[in-house]
């Protein structure tokens, strides 16, 4: 047998009591070694449990293994006390030689116990940082993984609610002047399918929509072409303000004016103003009407060729002229005058001598004026190459 410090021990050097003591001491240390081995085994088992079962291993150590370990430590403490008592008894009998053998053994045992305690403390500290598998998928626990290595949707919060989407949009960056390539999101009709459209495409759609309903701007250079104005029945019109009774004021380009409207070309090709529905508009209409019917304005005129194929060169408020015969014509008014008391002026071209030809009114009504041209000093009529008639009246 060899001692802890390497010295060879021979039982023959000791008396019977000492040998007996040493044998007891060997049993004590054998017991200590067994218990230390047990502690090591416990640690190894705990490490294995921790690796395999996590918090479950820690829980089991706390519940089952820790008491056993505490009992082992308690037994070692008792052994240490027994050794101390035994040492004291032998010291009283003058036996001190065993100190060299016992003390190193005791010191080794104590170091083993301290190391075991430290290992257990390290294990407990390590396990304290781990979470039990029993908490998987539980409140305040942790999420597990499915067969595809992903977190099951049952363990995920709802991601797309009106609140979450609304919050996301509210938190988005504002763009005051988005580019044509920027995208705007929406939901398709009749379902919940999301889609996006670029601002450029949306602008093109709106342009086509408004062009179809307002006007074709393909040739638009800043002024609204008359040909593209809205058409209502046979009348082209521009809608103006809305009167208090709900009727829209209009500027009509043909037909007679409606109430609160102005026709630029009423029946007969004249300006007409509709009856105003606002009292303070009456003066304006009267101003227009008064000037349109002013006695200082010609109510009708015509310039025509009376020779060969009789033809009208130009006219105003004339629907036709009637060729009654040589030098005999009737001027038919498109709109009748207020009465037949109008004045007329006539002139002819066909001779450089003003005394050669003359003109005369044959008859007149509010609707027509019959005139003649002839030689000044005879009764014969004559066709003139140019005959002009101007009418003033009410």
């Amino acid at each position, binding site marked *: 047998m060899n001692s802890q410090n390497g010295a060879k021990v021979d039982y023959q050097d000791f008396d019977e009591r000492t040998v007996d003591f040493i044998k007891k001491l060997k049993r004590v240390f054998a017991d200590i070694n067994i218990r230390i081995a047990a502690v090591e085994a416990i640690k190894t088992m705990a490490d294995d449990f921790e690796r395999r079962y996590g918090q479950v291993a820690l829980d089991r150590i706390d519940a089952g293994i820790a008491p056993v370990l505490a009992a082992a430590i308690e037994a070692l403490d008792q052994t240490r006390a027994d050794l101390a008592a035994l040492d004291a008894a032998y010291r009283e009998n003058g036996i001190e030689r065993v100190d060299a053998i016992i003390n190193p053994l005791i010191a080794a045992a104590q170091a083993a116990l301290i190391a075991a305690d430290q290992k257990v403390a390290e294990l407990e500290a390590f396990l304290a940082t781990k979470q039990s598998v029993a908490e998987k998928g539980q409140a305040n626990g942790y999420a597990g993984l499915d067969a595809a290595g992903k977190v099951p949707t049952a363990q995920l919060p709802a991601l797309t609610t009106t609140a979450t989407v609304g919050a996301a949009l509210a938190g988005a960056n504002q763009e005051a002047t988005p580019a044509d390539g920027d995208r705007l999101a929406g939901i398709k009709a009749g379902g919940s399918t999301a889609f996006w459209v670029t601002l450029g495409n949306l602008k093109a759609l709106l342009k086509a929509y408004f062009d179809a309903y307002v006007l074709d701007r393909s040739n638009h250079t800043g002024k609204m072409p008359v040909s593209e104005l809205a058409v209502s029945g046979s009348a082209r019109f521009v809608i103006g303000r809305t009167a208090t009774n709900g009727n829209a004021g209009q500027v009509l380009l043909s037909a*007679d004016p409606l109430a609160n409207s102005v026709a630029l070309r009423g*029946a007969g*090709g004249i300006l007409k103003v509709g009856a105003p529905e606002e009292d303070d508009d009456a003066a304006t209409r009267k101003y227009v009407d008064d000037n349109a019917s002013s006695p200082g304005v010609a109510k009708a005129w*015509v310039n*025509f060729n009376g*020779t*060969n*194929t*009789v*033809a*009208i060169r130009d*006219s105003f408020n*004339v*629907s*036709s*002229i*009637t*060729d*009654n*015969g*040589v030098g005999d014509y*009737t001027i*038919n*008014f*498109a*709109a*009748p005058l207020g009465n037949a008391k109008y004045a007329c002026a006539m002139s002819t071209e066909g001779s450089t001598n003003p005394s050669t030809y003359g003109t005369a009114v044959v008859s007149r*009504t509010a*609707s*027509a004026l019959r005139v003649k041209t002839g030689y000044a000093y005879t009764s014969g009529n004559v*066709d003139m190459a140019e005959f002009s008639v101007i009418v003033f009246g009410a």
Partner: protein
Amino acid sequence: MHRIIYPQGDGVAVIIPVGPLPVTEIARKDVPTGVPYRIVDVSDIPADRAERDLWSADFGEPDGYGVGAEAWFAEQEAEQ
């Protein structure tokens, strides 16, 4: 271009229309009341007016009858 002709005394009156009114409306308006008229092409009217007082035409199958200006204006007033 058209012309409207109607009998007048022993001869023919020729109406030269102008303006936006349809020629049929001008005929009804400017041909005297109850007088038959025909609407003809301008080329049917002689350009030589030397015998203007001797012109004649057949009004056996007229295109219509005049209502006269007064009646025509009354119609227009009534339609408004």
